[in-house]
């Protein structure tokens, strides 16, 4: 347990060793603001809620989170430090989880720094803070899902750019499978069961359910399962590479 904490702490501190982390957070906040106010037309809506703020998160995360997760393993491989890490007497699970939690904590920090939006909406109107809290939780879950997928794919390669691109593609597929546009295509010919199954695999479907203000146990189970599956897959890939010699 203390090893897990040690690794998480080191990884988290690693994000702030360069100004890149700050640039990342600033750009993320700016993009968030632009999406909310221009694309989401938050003021024009005249409603005291954060729907137009949260509705863009899946699409923003699609690019921002693979940028965080791409370095998780690819960089260690390129740098050679993976050899150091994997020959220390630490269980692989602690390394995989430690790296993941650090990435999640960093994303959570970026998300938490959007608090002025929440203050503004409370200042301007009388929003349902329960829904907003649920939405923040949903947003964090969504980030967790993307990061787990990204962690797994980063373990496949030593090239961060490749890790980024395949993570964006994978996250995109896991998102659009719940978008009405895609579902309509299937709906026209496929049986209802297939369409529903497809939609149920989408992070978008479950994210929307939570940001709707209803924290359904099944949505949480979905996210936790997805994260678990991809972290276990990360472990399997890292372990497999020990046999291959890469």
């Amino acid at each position, binding site marked *: 347990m203390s090893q897990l904490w040690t690794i998480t702490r080191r990884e988290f501190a690693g994000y702030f060793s360069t100004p890149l982390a700050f640039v990342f957070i600033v750009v993320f906040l700016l993009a968030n603001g632009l999406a909310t106010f221009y694309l989401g037309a938050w003021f024009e809506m005249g409603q005291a809620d954060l729907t137009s703020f949260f509705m863009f998160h899946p699409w923003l995360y699609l690019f921002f989170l693979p940028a965080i997760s791409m370095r998780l393993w690819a960089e260690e491989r390129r*740098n050679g430090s993976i050899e150091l890490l994997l020959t220390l007497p630490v269980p692989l699970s602690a390394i995989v989880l430690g790296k993941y939690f650090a990435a999640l904590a960093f994303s959570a920090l970026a998300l938490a720094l959007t608090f002025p939006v929440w203050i503004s909406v409370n200042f301007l109107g009388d929003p349902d803070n329960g829904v907003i809290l649920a939405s923040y939780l949903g947003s964090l879950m969504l980030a967790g899902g993307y990061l787990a997928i990204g962690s797994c794919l980063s373990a496949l390669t030593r090239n961060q750019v490749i890790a980024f691109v395949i993570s964006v593609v994978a996250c995109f597929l896991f998102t659009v499978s719940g978008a009405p546009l895609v579902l309509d295509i299937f709906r026209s010919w496929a049986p209802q069961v297939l369409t529903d199954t497809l939609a149920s695999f989408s992070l978008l479907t479950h994210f929307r359910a939570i940001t709707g203000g209803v924290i359904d146990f099944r949505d949480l189970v979905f996210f936790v399962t997805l994260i678990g599956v991809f972290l276990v897959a990360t472990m399997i890939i890292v372990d497999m590479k*020990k*046999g291959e*010699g890469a």
Partner: protein
Amino acid sequence: MIEVQHLVKKFGDFTAVNDLSFAVESGQVMGFLGPNGAGKSTTMKMITGFLRPTAGTARIAGIDICDNPLAAQTQLGYLPEGAPAWPDMTPRQFLDFITRIRGLDKSAARQAMIRAIGMTELHGVLDQPIDTLSKGYRRRVGLAQAIVHDPDVLVMDEPTDGLDPNQKFQVRQAIEEMAAHKAIIISTHILEEVDAICSHAMIIDRGEIVAEGTPSALAARSRFFGAVSLTLDTQLLERACKVLDGIDNSRYEVVTRGVETVISVFADTAQAPATDLLAHVRDLISQQEWPVRALALETGRLDDVFGTLTRKPRPLADTANVADGGGA
């Protein structure tokens, strides 16, 4: 302390390590020699648990690295090839991380860090990010990491690679200081290093052991072993050759370096003991009154043995250093 048993590693069709077995006891320093791609790094990666062997295993202090990697790695210090570290950390943060991860308690960690920093002389750079350090310092940071928990078994892949002569000397001194109560494996292709610090040496080529023994025993396998070499002025060469032609059952080789020439005289037959040849040459020198700069009975040359054993033609595909994919 280290027992390697029938270790095999294959990368696809390429056999990087082929049925390697050896043991290193506490107090021994085993020098691992071999050309690039011979399987040195791959073997070390398997001993330390970074790579899984295709067959065979290694035991660290009696613990099987494949069956119980964490317990084995606890006993182990490892300096991977190229001394990788996290470039954003300072040596202090880095060593602090290692002691924490290895579970040293606070006061033990403090003591351990002071000792490791002292041995590797890192005082001056403790708070500079590792990626701003020179190659020599980085290597020493890697070394400090490997020894900070005072492990019984130490595996170091080219610990002095890329260091200047002074730094090499320091690292060798650090290894010698620790050698008495540890089992150490180092890989190197610097042959003088083997003479300087190794109690045992092993030459491997294409994943197989081609020779092993003490450095002097290995060197004795050289054709130079027992030869008499004399160093004199190049001007004297012609006269010297005439006289040397007169010795029965012998031949000689000449290597000229500017004003200095080294003549190695070999006994043609194994009948006469080498000391007889030496005495003979010495007599000739005193008769002729040559100003000889040096006269020595050769104890053999490791580089010569290394070359003879490993300079066999190899198929092109084999020369690719597949084994070093992780660290190159």
